[in-house]
């Protein structure tokens, strides 16, 4: 019988690794929902130019650009923490996984700021 895992066991959450673990799960679940939505929306390409362009104009509103900034953050966290997990698993990562976490989080944050700046500058505030 497996030991039941609590979603949020407070005894472990003084460690950065536990936060990385739970946030990796939550961001992963968020991303699979986004992926499904994305595949479904992008499928309007098969409905021809008019339908597709209409959908793209709809998604060009500021609201979706702001949501996209959040999405970019979730992607970067999951991607860089994921690479950290691969390094920790295949190399002697347990010796430096905390430092590695902070290192990758800083890179992810810098990319998030740069990407968010791009997305904000692309917002067309005056409607379509």
């Amino acid at each position, binding site marked *: 019988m*497996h030991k*039941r*895992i609590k*979603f949020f066991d407070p005894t472990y959450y003084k460690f950065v690794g536990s936060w990385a673990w739970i946030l990796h*799960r939550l961001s*992963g*679940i968020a*991303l*699979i929902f986004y*992926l*499904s939505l994305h*595949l*479904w929306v*992008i*499928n309007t*390409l*098969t409905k*021809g*130019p008019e339908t*597709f*362009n209409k959908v*793209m*104009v709809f*998604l*060009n509103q500021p609201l979706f650009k702001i949501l*996209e900034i959040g999405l*970019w953050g979730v*992607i970067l966290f999951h*991607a860089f923490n*994921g*690479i950290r*997990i*691969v390094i920790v*698993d*295949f190399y002697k990562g347990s010796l430096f996984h905390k430092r590695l976490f902070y290192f990758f989080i800083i890179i992810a944050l810098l990319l998030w700021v740069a*990407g968010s700046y*791009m*997305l904000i*500058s*692309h917002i*067309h505030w005056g409607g*379509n």
Partner: protein
Amino acid sequence: MKRIGETSKTGGIAWLLQRISAVILFVLLLSHFITYHFIGKGAIEYSKIIEKMQQWWFPLIQFLFLITALYHGLNGVWTVIEDYVHSKGWRIFLYSLLITVGVTFLFVGILTIVNGSFIKLNK
């Protein structure tokens, strides 16, 4: 009947595939986001996307992207279900749901790739 050795073997392959797909996705997802989501001001236009999709490597890369993303995502959720759902009925229900979602979105994605990459534009 599965012996302990067998189950740990299949789990090991899933574990390894999750890491291999992670590395592939790291490259593909970040380059996808940079080339498609930071595409520039204004709404994305059908003709521009079709133009991109007509390059010979597009369907190959996108198909790889589609299967790795779906596999990685659904295998991740599978692991989460394993950790938190312990009743047999719920597990069977949720695993079937995952497989259905996977097959459906694989089909949806393939339709998009085939349609955009092999469509004849009468310009």
